């Protein structure tokens, strides 16, 4: 009887270990298969040229990925810059100022927002953000803009990642012990002083982690961005230029041009680049996060 219990325990442990390894294997499998599919184009052309050239003419055999890489980074950066203040301030309000009933109303709504399909954000962006930029904002800065721009992509993407950021950050703020905020308040600090000097400081590593997660999501977001950012293979020089991020490139062209082997391989390289960007970014941010946590090891 006893023996059976132990056998079950050991089997369960190994089975679950197997499952866990299997899950992680997906990362490697995806990475490798993309790499091998992208190999032909990398053999055919110099990788450095592929990465630094801005010339994209598939029918002439020119594949320069620089516009796509820059577009991806540019749009995501704008999105996070817009989204961060909104989500930090909202989460602080929900955590420290809002009454319980307001919180009870807000939290499901925020969850709902993050559940809306990207294509809806895309359509909405096309109908409102794009004309707004084209008619109202862009004329103040440049002569002409269609509205399908880096800025439109950034705004729509920001709106999409704000709910994600809010729901992570409210968790981060909630994890701060009540005693700590009470200690500050009982000394006669105002709520705002407590937020600035205690809550934000204590949750700084958490805020960075949330930002990283949101940025990873932003890098990969395809549909909504694709619908508003213009999709022209050029290096965007301002907010009001069209751009063409990597995911949009893949989604727009995959399945159409497969008669050209080098084109297919180029698209695979695009996917591989996106994969590498996300992996590298996560790695670097995990490292810096460790450093920050060491530095901020104040209780």
């Amino acid at each position, binding site marked *: 009887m006893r023996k059976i219990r132990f056998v079950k325990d050991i089997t369960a442990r190994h089975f679950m270990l197997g499952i866990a390894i299997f899950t992680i294997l997906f990362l490697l499998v995806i990475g490798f298969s993309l790499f091998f599919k992208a190999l032909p184009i990398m053999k055919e052309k110099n990788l450095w040229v592929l990465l630094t050239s801005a010339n994209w003419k598939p029918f002439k055999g020119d594949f320069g990925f620089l516009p796509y890489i820059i577009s991806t980074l540019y749009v995501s950066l704008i999105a996070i810059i817009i989204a961060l203040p909104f989500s930090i301030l909202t989460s602080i309000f929900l955590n420290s100022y809002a*009454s*319980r009933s307001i919180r009870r109303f807000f939290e499901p709504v925020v969850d709902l927002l993050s559940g809306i399909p990207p294509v809806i954000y895309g359509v909405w962006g096309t109908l409102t953000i794009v004309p707004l930029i084209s008619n109202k904002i862009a004329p103040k800065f440049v002569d002409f803009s269609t509205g399908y721009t880096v800025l439109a992509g950034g705004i729509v993407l920001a709106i999409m990642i704000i709910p994600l950021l809010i729901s992570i950050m409210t968790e981060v703020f909630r994890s701060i*012990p009540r*005693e*700590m905020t*009470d*200690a*500050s*308040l*009982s*000394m*006669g*600090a*105002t709520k705002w*002083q407590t937020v600035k*000097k*205690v809550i934000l*400081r*204590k949750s700084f590593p958490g805020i960075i982690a949330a930002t990283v997660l949101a940025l990873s999501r932003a890098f990969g977001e395809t549909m909504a961005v694709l619908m508003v950012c213009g999709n022209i293979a050029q290096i965007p020089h301002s907010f009001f230029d069209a751009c063409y991020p990597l995911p949009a490139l893949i989604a727009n062209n995959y399945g159409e041009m497969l008669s050209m082997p080098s084109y297919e391989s180029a698209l695979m390289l695009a996917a591989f680049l996106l994969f590498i960007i996300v992996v590298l970014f996560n790695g670097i941010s995990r490292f810096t996060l460790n450093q920050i946590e060491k530095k*901020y*090891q*104040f*209780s």
Partner: protein
Amino acid sequence: MIFANQHLETLTVNPVKETNRTVLLKKVMNNHTIRIENLDVYIEDQHILKDINLAVPEKSITCIIGPSGCGKTTFLKTLNRMHDETPEVKIKGRVYVDDLNIYDKGVNVIDTRKKMGLLAQRPCPLPMSIFDNVAYGPRIHGIKKRKAINQTVIQYLQYVGLWDEVRGRVRSSPSRLSIGQQQRLCLARGLAIEPEYILGDEATSSLDPLSTKKIEELFIKLKEKYTVILVTHTLRQARRIADYIVFMYLGKIVETGPTEEFFNNPKKQLTREYLSGSFS
């Protein structure tokens, strides 16, 4: 002295011989610095504190004792208005601090809290260096001069006997201090806002005996300058350091009195039972 109204009556009924202590009591009775009148506290629908009437004498240690759940901590929180942070709590009655009812409309909560240095149950250093922890109070109250802040920090770290122990590492995190040192740090931090009253909420319950002794000695030193109100659930501690005792049970004040009188000659049956350990 701390007197619930009914206790004032008992005093007049039993006149005591004129000793040093009664002289002190008389002097003190004219100097009630915290006076609580008809205080009722409700949390949601529960009636937590019931008709509390109390006057706390200045420059002495008053210990509030009683079994768990009798409302000691709730009572302490009414004194610095920390209940403001929980909307479920309703407060009726008057709490006079220096003859000002702190629950009057228009009374600034920050001014009230600035008068009260709170020492919590468990030490809770803020997420900043040892120095910044003590400097926190002066800074939030608008002191900017570096020299003044340095002076305050050193002064209060010395006062709690921590300066020599942390001298070389005041710029590092307090998380490496022992829990007793952390509690003294929190006391220094509370003193740095220059309060008039010290509130302690079972401030030694998480500490080892040696650290407890240090904190108790500090309380005794503190009462020269401050009025100290402590919540404690160890009777021995109350006996060791208190000048006056308030015994609470089920949200009511049962008996109050000077320490010796309270322990040696309790007047209520309930007090006698509690002191003999029949319930806790």
